[in-house]
């Protein structure tokens, strides 16, 4: 099934060159070579049925009819050797530490602005900067408790950080479910390796939440706040609540009285101490942010500011993962930690700066332009694939609101073999075989009493040939991601 496999000039995760797998992939590659397309297809169907019957789905907003979809699952696992992971882990810990110090600084002394490392205008112009948080002390000075950092591998085989998702990163439930399904449909490959376990993530998440509980709560009540059953990540919200054994609440279940937050139970009101909110800042409290929000809880921000309830993540962390502030993360690492960044950024041109803007406008046909206010692959221009009209439209948008745009060179994502079944994924000649598809990697980092990086993460796959867009809302799929215990699989 690897006939005519091409590595096409980009970094291939599995093969050094066609026919020669990397050392840590050799056992898996051999196992796949020994299978025929029908046997593989049977396993893929089995996985699909498992996902559907378990209701492991996400919601697509633009699609009126089939609102609930299965996240396409690609059965070939991505494998990361131990030494490579060790570097990633150190880099991610360094990064989340700096980002937390940055949030603390921005909402208090603003040293980084006073020393002119970052232009204050960039901060005050950030949509996600929350004046309401200025001078507020958050429990244990932790702002970003949960981070999902997007990593990609360039043509040089080096990892780059594409963005830090420090608000409400999603996808971790798929990581855990992918692993569970993988063990059921492909035990043979799984057992060839010593793969590091990820199953303690929910426990670590609960510990992270309990760590920031108000001091008066001896046995804190933790909950997850969801926008509701129609949210695209609803499955994940229920999954995490179930795994942690805590309640999943909606805004309508909560009330604030005398500065404390309570939930409505069959036995009356019950105090809530820690809220993992999967709701954007904007919708949290109609008295403080958007008045038309019916998803939030009136008075929640007051209870939060006086420290009667903890929010995970803190309000206002969006300032740290703003795409126009992202280019300064290496400076933050330097400034707050006095260290050199372990993980590199992708070079980024901030259109708010005149020189950068000029460069972006002159190179619209080569760059990727991203809106700083959107995520999930929306509001993006892939310059090299865009028409002249699309480029002109973006030029206009950039001139009108330069603060809202950044430009980056196209990063050639690494590729990984994917099974082309002719339905979800079609190969070049339509036959059923393996072909390279671009992938990224989103590890999850928890910042509690200590910083814990889950060994693995969500590998997202662009299922269309040649596409660089991996977002699930744009037709991406996912893979199980294995971090190995030691260098070699047996």
């Amino acid at each position, binding site marked *: 099934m690897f006939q005519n496999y091409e590595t096409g000039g980009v970094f291939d995760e599995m093969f050094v060159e066609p026919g020669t797998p990397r050392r840590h992939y050799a056992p898996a590659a051999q196992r796949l070579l020994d299978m025929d397309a029908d046997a593989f297809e049977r396993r893929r169907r089995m996985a699909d049925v498992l996902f559907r019957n378990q209701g492991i789905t996400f919601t697509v907003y633009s699609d009126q009819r089939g609102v609930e979809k299965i996240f396409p699952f690609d059965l070939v696992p991505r494998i990361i050797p131990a030494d490579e992971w060790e570097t990633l882990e150190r880099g991610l810990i360094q990064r989340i530490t700096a980002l937390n110090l940055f949030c603390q600084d921005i909402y208090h002394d603003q040293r980084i602005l006073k020393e002119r490392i970052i232009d204050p205008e960039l901060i005050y112009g950030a949509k996600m900067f929350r004046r309401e948080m200025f001078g507020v002390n958050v429990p244990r000075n932790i702002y970003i408790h949960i981070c999902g950092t997007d990593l990609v591998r360039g043509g040089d085989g080096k990892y780059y950080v594409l963005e830090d998702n420090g608000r409400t990163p999603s996808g971790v439930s798929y990581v855990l479910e992918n692993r569970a399904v993988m063990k059921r449909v492909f035990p043979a490959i799984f057992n060839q390796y010593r793969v590091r376990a990820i199953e303690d993530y929910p426990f670590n998440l609960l510990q992270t939440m309990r760590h920031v509980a108000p001091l008066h709560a001896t046995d804190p009540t933790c909950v997850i706040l969801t926008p509701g059953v129609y949210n695209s990540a609803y499955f994940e*919200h229920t*999954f*995490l609540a179930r795994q942690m054994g805590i309640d999943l609440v909606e805004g309508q279940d909560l009330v604030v009285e005398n500065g404390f937050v309570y939930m409505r139970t069959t036995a009356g009101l019950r105090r809530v101490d820690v809220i993992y909110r999967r709701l954007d800042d904007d919708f949290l409290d109609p008295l403080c942010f958007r008045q038309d929000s019916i998803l939030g809880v009136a008075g929640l921000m007051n209870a939060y500011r006086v420290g009667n309830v903890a929010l995970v993540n803190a309000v206002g962390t969006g300032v740290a993962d703003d795409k126009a502030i992202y280019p300064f993360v290496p400076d933050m690492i330097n400034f707050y930690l006095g260290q050199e960044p372990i993980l590199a950024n992708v070079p980024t041109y901030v259109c708010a700066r005149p020189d950068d803007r000029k460069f972006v406008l002159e190179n619209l046909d080569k760059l990727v332009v991203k809106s700083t206010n959107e995520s999930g692959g929306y509001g993006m221009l892939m310059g090299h694939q865009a028409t002249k009209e699309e480029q002109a439209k973006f030029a206009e948008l950039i001139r009108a609101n330069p603060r809202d745009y950044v430009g980056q060179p196209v990063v050639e994502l690494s590729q990984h073999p994917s099974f082309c079944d002719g339905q979800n994924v079609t190969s070049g000649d339509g036959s059923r075989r393996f072909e390279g598809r671009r992938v990224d990697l989103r590890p999850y980092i928890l910042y509690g009493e200590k910083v814990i990086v889950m060994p693995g993460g969500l590998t997202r796959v662009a299922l269309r040939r040649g596409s660089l867009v991996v977002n699930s809302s744009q037709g991406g799929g996912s893979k199980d991601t294995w971090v190995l215990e030691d260098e070699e699989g047996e």
Partner: protein
Amino acid sequence: MSVSIFEGAGHAPAVNIEPRPMLSRDADSMFWMSRYVERSEHVARLLRVHTLLLTDVGDLTPVLEYRMWLTILTTMRLPSDLPGDGPIGARIARYMTFDPGNPSSILSCIAKARENARAIRESISSELWESLNTLYWTVNDESAAARYEEAPDTWLYNIMNGSMLFQGLNNQTMGHDQRWNFTQVAKFLERIDVTARMMDTRFELLTAMAMQLDQPILNIHLMGVLRSACSLEAYRRLHSAELDATRVAQFLLFQRDYPRSVRFCVDQARDAIEGIRVSNGARSPSVPERILGRLSSELEYADINDVLAHGLTPYLQKIQETVNEASIALQKAYFLY
């Protein structure tokens, strides 16, 4: 030196933990999830029994056959003007299986049960969710209608089994705590309601047709009534194969130990409501508990001959009203305060 896994360093962990009270919205969803699953089972059974029954009694007059089919609508409290055309049996079947416009079609019931389950996905077991989700995909799949046409009886049987599996998993994979009690109340209230209406419509029709029914045909109809409540075999074990309208009514209303009789269901619903109240630490009976408690005593001491002398219909209607009152009182006490 041996190390015990039970000796933690420092303090002893708290072991005697009281379950925490549940969210009102979760209780509400628990209730409706269970109630809709139960309803889908009744619809499937009624359709299945009617198809068999009308085969058994042979050629009825068109008017009679029409009225027999309409009892399904009356039992499910649906208006009797049916959409579509063609033979009445096929129209009813279409309407009661896949019509999304009919709130009591099997598809609607299971879709609503699943919607409620999805809203409380985190508080029900994976096994329970998967059984319901799988059942949903059985009725919502593109090929579902074709598979129904191919073998209606098997398909309806699978729906009923789906409900039974759901109930079994509910009993065996969920704690018998407050949330479980909400599913029990819902199931039994629904069963009482459907059984009472089924008895009412069918006995009314049989009474109206009495002149035209000879004993063998009446027997087939009485078997149909028992089958509609899944009670034929249990009745036979008690009374042998001898069918008698009074005995049938007595069995369906008052049989103490049979899980389809009204009395059994009322007692179970009352016990579940009591369980809900006790787990909240309240000591005196709640409003819905009192309502069902009074009904339970009534059923315990009632005499079928008295009931028939005063009219079966008003008696059955009183039961339906009481169930409705209990249902509203329950919502007021726990969901909408």
